[in-house]
Every structure is written in structure tokens, then in C-alpha cells.
């Protein structure tokens, strides 16, 4: 069997837990996450970087997992939507805000958008609506018209900022 079809061992951290699997050189990260690791929260839409549904965090940076090979992330720290909930199984802050604002209907695009938000809100702690919409231009949502998504993200940004201010004053 040629090297091209060898299944190489890949070790990653997924949401803080060490995981391993095997991948041929040509295997996309999106397929590795879903089929090798069984984490099907990450969705696959277009497979050419347009829709954003497969967005995950690689070493904290929001990236299309369909435009990355599994072998490229050997040893990396991955975060997927499965890591956003609280330990007790309840929804995390972002997820709660999405629910409250009806920021999803069919939910296909949601996992990718949530992961982009994690990265974005870390870098932009007081984002403007224009900045949020610019970030969201990298995601296609055919249900909501985006307005409720923008509202949810702005609310979370405000909430995180207030919490941070309270902690630093305490």
C-alpha cells in the first residue's frame, strides 16, 4: 500500500480531552472530527469554504475545518460546539442567548457561527454591530435573516464585559 493511502495516527485535544484517530493524508479535518472522532456537532455544508457551517477553533482560532487537512492539526488543541455547554449539560452563555433571541431555526449553520463567536468575542470585547455583521459575513444562514443572531452576539458581548468589570471591582 502506498504512503498516499496509509492511515496515519493523529492525536489532538478536543474540548480539553485527549483524543486520537487515524487519517489518510487527503482526509479533511471536518471528516476526521465527524467520522473518526464521532463528534457530529460540527456540520458540513459546502466543502469549499463558503458556508462556514464547519467552523471550529484550532489553537483558539476560528477556521473552516473543510479547508484544513486532518494531518495538519496533529498535536493541536481543537474546540468544537460540543465544548460550549456547561458541565451539568445546560446551555452555555452564547447558546442561551441564541435560544432567547431565536437566533436559529433549522440550526444547521449554528455550530459554526457559535465557534466563530468564541474567537471573535475574545478579540473584540466591545464589538460594534458593523463588526459583528462583518464577522457573520463568513457564515450563511438561510433561516433567520441574521438580525436575531446579531442581537444575541451583542447581548453576550455586553454581558461578558459587565461580568468582567464586576470581577475586577470585587
Amino acid at each position: 500500500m502506498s504512503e498516499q493511502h496509509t492511515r496515519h495516527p493523529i492525536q489532538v485535544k478536543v474540548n480539553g480531552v485527549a483524543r486520537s484517530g487515524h487519517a489518510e493524508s487527503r482526509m479533511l479535518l471536518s471528516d476526521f472530527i465527524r467520522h473518526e472522532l464521532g463528534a457530529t456537532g460540527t456540520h458540513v455544508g459546502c466543502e469549499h469554504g463558503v458556508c462556514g457551517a464547519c467552523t471550529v477553533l484550532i489553537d483558539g482560532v476560528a477556521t473552516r475545518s473543510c479547508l484544513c487537512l486532518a494531518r495538519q492539526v496533529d498535536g493541536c488543541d481543537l474546540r468544537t460546539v460540543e465544548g460550549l455547554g456547561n458541565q451539568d449539560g445546560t446551555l452555555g452563555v452564547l447558546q442561551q442567548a441564541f435560544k432567547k433571541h431565536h437566533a436559529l431555526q433549522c440550526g444547521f449553520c449554528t455550530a459554526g457561527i457559535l465557534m466563530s463567536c468564541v474567537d471573535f468575542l475574545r478579540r473584540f470585547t466591545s464589538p460594534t454591530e458593523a463588526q459583528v455583521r462583518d464577522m457573520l459575513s463568513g457564515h450563511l444562514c438561510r433561516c433567520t435573516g441574521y438580525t436575531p443572531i446579531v442581537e444575541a452576539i451583542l447581548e453576550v458581548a455586553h454581558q461578558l464585559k459587565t461580568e468582567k468589570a464586576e470581577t475586577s471591582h470585587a
Partner: protein
Amino acid sequence: MKPLAFEYKRVDKVSQALQWLHEAGENARILAGGQSLVILLNMRLAQPAYLLDISRCEELNFLRQEKDMVCVGASTTQAQLQFWPDLVQAAPMLAEAIPFISHYQIRNRGTVVGSIAHADPSAELPLCLATLDGRVVLRSRKGSRELDSVQFQQGMLTTAKKSDEMVTEVRFPVAKAGHGYAFDEFALRRGDFAIVACAVDAGPEMIRLGIGGVADKPVVVQWARNDSASYKEQLNDLAWQLNAQDDQHASAAYRRHLVRELGHKTIETALSRCANNKD
């Protein structure tokens, strides 16, 4: 929508990549951010036998100002450049152009050098490189050479890079005192490829105007500083010279219209900044 099989090699040292390129030649492709190449792989428009992945090559991950040049290594992402604290000061044209590149999530992984090596005629970074008269550094096992943008970018997705060479670095000239810079583009949706993109470097005596998205590569013209009305005539002549084509996104006539209107607007913006930047 899955790539054909290939052999993957992770590059930790440039010398290693150059050796592999020497052995595999045109059967090998350099993979950096992959935000253009993996799309081509998924669609099977590219079918290399070897992929040499430089995305984690520390030797090529740099971003620094050396004298009058901003030097960017081949594994440095567009987001790294965008969030570089010195960018607005050192290269205001790039600071204005980068937000037009695709989307936040793509810039996070896409590289500066990768976009220039890919040589898409409507891409922002090759247009900036051409307008600013930047340099492309190519290395092979035999040595290295430095080309300007005209020498490097030869046409649609075509460059002067030989099969045993890789682009290791690009260099953008630092903003000059007394010059005004501007970048603007028109696309159908945010993040789409530009129908027409304009970049302007306005100096005390000359203005340089670069147009992307119309011809098969960025086209740069240099005009003497003049009154505003004469630029309109020159822009009209330029619009016709670019040999715009009809396609499903825009008609040739609309592209000429955009060259005239967006070109004029971008020149005006650069000139106004020129006046504010006299020191």
C-alpha cells in the same frame, strides 16, 4: 468534494522543503493556509502528488519592518498582518485592503504570501504589492532571487515561480512621508471576489493607480499629479485599455464604469490623505 490521494509532508525547515521541491518538481505544491489550494483540491482542479505543508514552519512565520520594507514570511496569516499594531503606520494601504479579503474566518488561516503566490487577478494583496512596487523572494536549492510584482505575476493564476522554487517572503515598501494611500473595491457580496478593485499611492509629483479584477493580473499606471478633471479622461482611456470581458458577474461596460467611478473616488481619497500627511 474530496481531494484525490496525495503524499503529505510537514515542513519544519525551509531547507527540507527546498530539497523535496528539487526532487518532486512540478508534482509538488506548497500548502500554507490552504484557503485557496484546499478548495482546488476538494474540487479536484488541483491534483498534486505531494503536498508540502509549511503552515507550522516557524522559520517562515515572521512579520517585521526592515528599514523601508515590511517583510512577511510565507506562513504568516492575513489575520496576523491585520492585527499587527504597526500596520496602519507602516502600510496604510494594506490596513485598508485586508478587511476586503474574503472573511474573518478565512483571514485567520489564509496567508499573505499564499494569496500572492496564488495570483488571482481579483485578489487584494497582489494588487497592493503591484501598486506599492513590492518584492517577492523566491528560493530554491540553488539559491534565491527577488522579483518585482510585474516580473512575478504573469497572468491568471500564473507566476514566474519555477517548479523547484518556493516563495519564502514578500516585501511591501513602508509608507512614504507626504504620500496618501487608499484602497477600495466593489463586490456583489461582502467577501466575494472584487468585480473591480482600486489601489492608489498618491505622491507629491506622481500618482500610482492599480486596478484589479478586470485584466488577467493587476494593472498599474503612473500619472503626473494633475487637476482632478484630467484624471477622469485618463481613467476613461485606462478603462478601455484593460480589455474588460463580460461574465456572469458583470458586463464589460459595467466594469469600465466601475474603473472610471471607483478609480476616481479612490484617487480623491488618496489625494485628501496626502494633504494630511505632509510631515
